[in-house]
């Protein structure tokens, strides 16, 4: 028995050592592309990755959904096979992030804009359709809004939509949306809330005089139950809207696109969210999507150049491309050509200008 156990222990240790050695060998030459970043870009990035993997001799790239900020942090940690080749982002990279990239030796980042995504405020198809302005969205969801006095702020008193504007239905304000960690929430706050907030003259003034206060007024969402944090799972929000006719939800356009028979997007500033309205820029709550790639990794990581070519091809991001079927709003043709040329010639971002 004792001998058997010793043998077993030796075998186990050997197995683990062998596994570790095998791993070290595999890691020194990574044979797959490694992508991290935004959960909004994830559905598009994965489709391209899969098509690229199936249609070529290379392995299918690995795509991790870490969020934009987390992804760029991993991306900027260094150069080499241990670090991601590509970071997806639902906003442009910040100057501070570029600086931390450069500090870690990542100084040849290529920025690739891939298209646009709209954020919609939607309710059930069985409920009456809504039309809101960005100011009304701000008045419905902000934590504090301007009161009677001069430059006075009061806690948001609005209970019903009709409290804001008598033309709106007399239903309770109940909006299901993503939590603060989400990129969709960031973009919604920046585009819809801030857009409405800066329609108030004295708050707009604040932007030049007291920017911190301006941000805290425009970016704070109420916490008294009218805005319900429904988690990052947009499918869940869609299901809840279908069950609760008086509620509205905030999510990405691709979910509206896939669930058009269940939910309907509210018109914002008179524009109904649609493919065309986002593409031509008239729908106000839309944002560009990007990915960032390290130039030094191209031709070192097998297939990276091919993956870039696949992503920037017309059959992927073109007007009739397979990404548009997934809800990505394409850029205009000239802009696509311009970005595709950047990708082809591997033109890195100018760090000094940022």
């Amino acid at each position, binding site marked *: 028995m004792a001998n058997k156990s010793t043998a077993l222990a030796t075998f*186990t240790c050997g197995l683990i050592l062998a*596994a570790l050695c*095998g*791993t070290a060998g595999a890691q020194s030459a990574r044979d797959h592309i490694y992508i991290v970043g935004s959960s909004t870009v994830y559905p598009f990035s994965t489709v391209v990755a899969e098509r690229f993997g199936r249609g070529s001799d290379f392995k299918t790239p690995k795509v991790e*959904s870490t969020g934009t900020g987390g992804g760029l942090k991993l991306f900027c940690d260094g150069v080499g096979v241990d670090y991601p080749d590509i970071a997806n982002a639902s906003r442009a990279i910040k100057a501070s992030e570029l600086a931390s990239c450069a500090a870690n030796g990542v100084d040849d980042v290529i920025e690739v804009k891939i298209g646009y995504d709209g954020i919609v405020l939607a309710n059930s198809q069985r409920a009456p359709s809504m039309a809101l302005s960005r100011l009304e969205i701000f008045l419905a969801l902000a934590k504090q809004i301007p009161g009677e006095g001069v430059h006075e702020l009061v806690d948001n008193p609005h209970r019903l939509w009709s409290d804001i504007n008598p033309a709106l239905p007399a239903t309770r304000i109940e909006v299901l949306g993503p939590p603060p960690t989400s990129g969709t929430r960031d973009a919604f706050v920046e585009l819809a809330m801030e857009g409405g907030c800066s329609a108030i003259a004295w708050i707009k003034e604040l932007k030049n005089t007291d920017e911190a206060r301006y941000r805290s007024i425009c970016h704070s969402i109420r916490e008294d139950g009218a805005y319900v944090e429904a988690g990052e*799972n947009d499918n869940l929000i869609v299901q809840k809207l279908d069950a609760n006719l008086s509620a509205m939800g905030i999510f990405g356009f691709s979910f509206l696109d896939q669930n058009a028979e269940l939910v309907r997007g509210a018109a914002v500033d008179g524009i109904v969210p649609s493919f065309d309205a986002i593409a031509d820029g008239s729908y106000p709550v839309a944002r560009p999507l990007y990915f960032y790639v390290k130039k030094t990794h191209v031709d070192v990581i097998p297939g990276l150049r091919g993956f870039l070519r696949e992503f920037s091809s017309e059959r992927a991001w073109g007007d009739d491309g397979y990404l548009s079927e*997934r*809800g990505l709003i394409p850029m205009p043709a000239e802009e696509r050509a311009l970005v595709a040329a950047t990708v082809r010639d591997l033109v890195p971002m100018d760090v000094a200008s940022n």
Partner: protein
Amino acid sequence: MLWGCAWCASIESSMSEVTRGKVSAGLARRRRKERLFRLCGMLATTVGIVFLVVFFADLIGKGSSAFRQTFLRLEISFDTAVIAPQGSIDLQYADFDLLARNALRDLFPDVSGRNPLRELNRLLSVGAGYQLRDMLQQDPGLLGSVQSVWLPASSSVDMLRKGNIDASIDAALRPISDAQLAWVAALQRDGRLELRWNRAFFSNGDSREPELAGIRGALMGSFYMLLVTLALALPIGVAAAIYLEEFAPRNRWSDLIEVNINNLAAVPSIVFGLLGLAVFINWATLPRSAPLVGGLVLALLTLPVIIIASRAAIKSVPPSIRDAALGLGASRMQVVFHHVMPLSLPGMLTGAIIGMSRALGESAPLLMIGMVAFIVDVPGGFSDPATALPVQIYLWADSPERAFAERTSAAIMVLLGFLMLMNLAAVVLRKRMEQKW
């Protein structure tokens, strides 16, 4: 004395009368309480069972349809002019999609124009071409022949066939057009459209096309991970338990260790993930997303469970057995390996299996070490990028495509099946190997 006794007896009889009266008065109340308590217990059990039944009914109702998948039967002509224009075939670049599209177009010859043709092609899955490529790769003799092949339909056709798309609503709102509805009806009339066993669900890795997505990659990832976990946690856990129970001196230090082990068993799993990220990935530079690292993290997670269960099993071995062996001149190690270990093995294995089933269901620590990722290729080893079953469920639940909803439920069914098997194995082991003293 005599009268006293009579008085005493009368008192006694009257006392017992009083007591009996009190008791019988209270009896009804006690019985009522007893009944109420039993009722509460029964109610609690019923509520639990009802929740379980609702959960399973919902899961099976939603998920069972994923095990069947809509296929289209097409007469595919492996036309040399299409796939081997230069005479020899290049499997990588030959246009196998065109073969399927041509066959579909032959069925509806009056469809013309770019957009109607595109709509017609969308009845077929993107995977149709890959399936034809694989067929030809396996049997090159098919080149030039005509075969009747069942090809996967697109997920919107599948959803329509399974009744998840309401065909009566406005065409603009549903993901399938009027023309496509008519084609699907015609195909069904001809017996060319059928629900068949969904083999891809068990043989494929992840995919963004619901009809091609499978759980094989996640299953293999979970398998490799649990192998590492078992290989590490079982020997270390058992060795630690034996040392602590049989050899370690009882003092302040061993008390401290005991408290710490019990504490570790209650630490939230995400903490182990953070530890794994810091130690295994950042310090030891093991690869992200690898089952090896996942297994290491899960081993840390299951170690306390195994140690606690093993110690309990060792404690339950009667000291008389140890004394007898020692009395016959066995060494301490011989006592442990010849007597204590064989007797406590069922308990140890039960602990290990319960620890493993906990590890199988974990997803939070895997988030930190990069196993929540889109990985198509089925992992073939300990260092290949991989996901795990619970992670796959999470990823699918978050996908916008409707057809992923049923796959999410189906994957949960598979996970529950494995958990049930493991827990059943623990029960059977205990029943069969249990010793009675």
